[in-house]
């Protein structure tokens, strides 16, 4: 009955049912995306009309529990944008150069040390990054803060929990993503391109920057997209090192990100406060959608020109 050969009837049954199972699984992901989108919009929009879109998105005062509450999340939105951008600016060059090192210039022995280290980095839970940030980064940052603002009378000292600490933690956290995807993009560049470039007399470095990197561009852009996604969605690690007060995103200010705003206040929030938190979730959701669509477009445009 269960022989591999089987008859043609049972074979077509297996084929068909397998196809059905695959289709159902595929639509499960679609269903998840659609239901999450619907839920976020349904639970995030009531506060928009209740508080007023302009007041909510462009207000700078966050006092959700005051007698006359104020729900301005502009600083929170800006913090997420500035923080993520800074983390990308810091993390992507390091990540891409590491990928070049692994794919092109590293000796086997060195690569055997670096690669497992990166894999380990990817596996460390984000809360550990946060704890290390509190223990090591914040005290060092506080010393720096005390030196820089020694004569300032207006600066509010944060004890090292500030935007810069969060950015450093984020930059380290996106490294594994950026490195792994960039490396596989670099490796998938046909070796004939490299050989041709070297044969034309180009040096190793010229070949890497003029030939291999442009050829692997789309893969590296994907790496950046996923890095942005990881950075903007991270909550646990940065909630421990960012200070979590709502302030304008300057490097030494205590700041609150979209994610940490959700995490830190969801526990006790009620009524309109809670609804506004859902709106923050919706803003975060919109951001991730926007970034993905936007960068996909850049990627497609780039492909056309070639």
């Amino acid at each position, binding site marked *: 009955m269960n022989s591999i050969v089987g008859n043609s009837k049972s074979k077509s049954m297996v084929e068909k049912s397998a196809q059905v199972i695959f289709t159902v699984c595929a639509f499960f992901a679609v269903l998840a995306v659609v239901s999450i989108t619907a839920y976020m919009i349904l639970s995030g929009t009531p506060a928009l009309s209740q508080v007023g879109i302009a007041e909510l998105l462009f207000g700078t005062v966050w006092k959700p529990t005051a007698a006359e509450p104020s729900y301005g999340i502009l600083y929170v939105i800006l913090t997420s944008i500035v923080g993520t951008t800074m983390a990308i600016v810091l993390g992507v060059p390091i990540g891409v150069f590491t990928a070049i090192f692994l794919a092109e210039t590293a000796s086997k022995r060195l690569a055997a040390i670096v690669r497992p280290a990166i894999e380990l980095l990817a596996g460390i839970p984000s809360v550990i990054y946060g704890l290390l940030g509190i223990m090591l980064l914040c005290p060092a940052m506080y010393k720096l803060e005390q030196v820089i603002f020694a004569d300032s009378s207006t600066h509010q*000292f944060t004890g090292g929990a500030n935007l810069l600490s969060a950015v450093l933690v984020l930059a380290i956290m996106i490294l594994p993503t950026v490195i792994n995807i960039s490396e596989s993009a670099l490796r998938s560049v046909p070796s004939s391109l490299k050989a041709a470039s070297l044969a034309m007399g180009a040096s190793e470095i010229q070949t890497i920057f003029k030939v291999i990197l442009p050829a692997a561009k789309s893969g590296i852009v994907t790496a950046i997209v996923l890095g942005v996604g990881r950075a903007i969605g991270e909550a646990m690690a940065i909630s421990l090192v960012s200070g979590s007060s709502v302030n304008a995103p300057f490097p030494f200010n205590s700041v609150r990100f979209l994610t940490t705003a959700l995490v830190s206040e969801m526990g*006790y929030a009620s009524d309109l406060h809670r609804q506004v938190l859902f709106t923050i979730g919706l803003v975060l959701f919109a951001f991730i959608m926007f970034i993905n669509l936007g960068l996909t477009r850049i990627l497609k445009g780039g492909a056309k020109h070639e």
Partner: protein
Amino acid sequence: MKKRMISLLAAGILVVGSLTGCGNTTETESPAAQSSAPAAQEAAPEESSAAQESAPAEESSAAEVAEANTDLSGSVSMSGSTSMEKLANAVAESFMVKYPNVTVTAEFTGSSAGVESVLAGSCDIGNSSRALTEDEKAEGAVENIVAIDGIAVVVDPANTVTNLTKDQLISIYTGETTNWSEVGGADQAIVVVGREAGSGTRGAFEELLEIEDACAYANELDSTGAVMAKVASTPGAIGYVSLDVLDDTVIAVQLDGVDATEENIKAGSYSLSRPFVMATKGEISEQKPEVQELFNYLASEEGQELIKSVGLILPE
């Protein structure tokens, strides 16, 4: 088109990831989960040990107790202070374990609303995290203080300031005083640490000092443990925590020369404390049996343990 679909899916998956992350943390940190877990744990062993002790001695009395537990049926509704959420949920949970036929519900609408609704007869117990006003008492509300909430002000262990006046504390938290030298300490910046909006401790602290939403926090942390860790590890930091979590990693400062201790709070000399009142309309003895039993339970050893387990001080 295909690429776009893929990236859309990837975006969705990222969002799912981040959302489930958030969901988990809020769930585990929700006060109900926190408070009910220790409550249930504590209630269970005590009950079983009680049963074990009484069983060999007098089997009939053990049976009687069990009967009495299921005999009582009905419902108790509480309404009021959000600060008392942890206590109210813990009491409701463990009381329902002991008396399975009684339903205890708790709503958190604010102290004044709670007292109002108990006076209006729409609930049995009005939870209030402040003493009742003369007006409320005149309307028939009876003040049953079941617990006392105390807040300690802590500084890092190297700080030389060990005493602050109430005014100094207010000016530190509103951002007027920014250096320890202004309050008699070393020339060091003050790092003002507090809790997130919505936290009961923050609500109580700001309410007692009358600086609601006027605070300039440099750090708003979302748990007591985080405040303790931050203050302990940051030179020049000041924070506030509930009295029961104090340990020697930080220094609890004196307030107007009074130590933050249970004795001083009970004596009324330490000002950062407030009573947790379960107000009833008329005396407890006039209430329906299940409400009376709830107060008996709170006064019992088991109930007192429960109150301590959520970090509160027992009233005399």
